[in-house]
């Protein structure tokens, strides 16, 4: 059986003491949630090799980090979607998509045209990144991350900076993504609708530790469902131990 992600990471970052043990199956979306400052973004950065913590990170048969081993970020087959998209402003949409694809080793299992179709980007491809809406930026960021041929997809609140309308527009793309991918996805989110729509499993983080990890009851499709039904699904997630941050 192929192994997914196995990570044990610990260390001090600012005032936060992180001590995490995390195992993800080879595919499926794990929502990572918990209060602000609990270490979710730090964990994402540490898995990406952007923040250096002690411990081990293994994905399948590859070791990214262990005693005496620390693969730098550019040697890890990751896709990262940042909260602010992190698009390269001097390149067009196509330039951004090509950036990781050109550097990824052959053969490319995730193909350019497929991802452009999946994310609905064909009309935007030659546009400057400055002329994209917030939702479009995030779609480009997700497509770009996928084209880098990752073995692990990390998403740090990709929808947090979007207004509710843009969020509603982008969720179907994420759902399509979820259904077509076979790699582990760690998805930081607060929003119950996002979690209800996307997550197979929910991990809750508090004060630098993962305090609970539960399977989400199936992946409910939002298609044809009313708002009330979605809310009910989110309630089910809450009952399963998920505690969202209260937004003011």
């Amino acid at each position: 059986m192929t192994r997914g992600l196995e990570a044990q990471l610990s260390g001090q970052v600012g005032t936060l003491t992180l001590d995490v043990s995390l195992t993800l199956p080879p595919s499926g979306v794990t929502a990572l949630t918990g209060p602000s400052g609990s270490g979710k973004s730090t964990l994402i950065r540490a898995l990406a090799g952007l923040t250096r913590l002690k411990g081990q990170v293994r994905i399948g048969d590859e070791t990214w980090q262990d005693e005496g081993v620390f693969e730098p970020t550019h040697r890890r087959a990751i896709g990262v979607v940042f909260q602010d998209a992190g698009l390269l402003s001097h390149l067009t949409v196509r330039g951004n998509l090509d950036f990781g694809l050109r550097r990824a080793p052959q053969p490319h299992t995730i193909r350019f045209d497929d991802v452009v179709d999946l994310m609905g980007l064909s009309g935007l491809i030659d546009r400057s990144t400055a002329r994209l809406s917030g939702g479009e930026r995030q779609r480009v960021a997700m497509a770009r991350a996928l084209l880098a041929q990752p073995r692990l997809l990390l998403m740090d609140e990709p929808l947090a900076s979007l207004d509710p309308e843009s969020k509603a527009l982008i969720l179907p793309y994420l759902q399509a993504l979820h259904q077509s991918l076979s790699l582990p996805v760690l998805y930081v989110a607060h929003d119950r609708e996002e979690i209800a729509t996307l997550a197979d499993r929910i991990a809750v983080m508090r004060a630098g530790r993962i305090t609970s990890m539960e399977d989400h009851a199936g992946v409910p499709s939002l298609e044809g469902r009313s708002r009330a039904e979605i809310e009910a699904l989110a309630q089910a997630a809450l009952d399963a131990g998920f505690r969202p941050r209260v937004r003011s």
Partner: protein
Amino acid sequence: MLEVIWTTVRLATVTTVLLILVSTPVAWMLARRRRWWKDVLGAVLSLPIVLPPTVLGFYLLLALAPQSPLMALLHPFGIRSLAFTFTGLVIGSMVYSLPFAITPIRNAFEAMGEGPMEAAATLRASPLDAFCSVAIPQARRGFASAAILVFAHTVGEFGVVLMIGGAIPGQTEVVSVRIYQLVESLKFNEAHLLAAGLLAFAFCVLTVIAVLDRTGKAP
């Protein structure tokens, strides 16, 4: 007169190209994480802004003269002195304009932040790759400002070239020094011509920088 203008343009071009090459890695180092010694280094590299050009020229003259320790190092290569040579003038101009090259490039690198470099790393770009394919293109306006400032500053320098250049026609005699000599010998008409040319040049340079600044800020 054309010879003087040619020497000036040649000096400014060579100085600009070499100084941008030297300043880029230094500006990058200064723009990354803060360390106390970087502030000290930054202050040393900014000294040419506040030093009188004659003071700078005097020390450069000592350094480039035959008996200096620097020249002693170059003796094995057959170089005995660089004072009153075009090469010496290029070295002097580079030292004199150093802060004008480093500051805009450093500011552009700092304004970029860590984000683009981290994004590039997650897309499999090595640090050197990311530096060439992300940092340099994103800082292009800083490079343009630096190149324009260094070129203009070199064209306009007077004290340093007078001290270490010696105004040898065809080699080290530049426009600003020629104007001085023309005025001394009361040839006001010729002086007018060159001075008005430099005035127009300076005006054009500032206009270009203003336009660059504005397009840089546009969304």
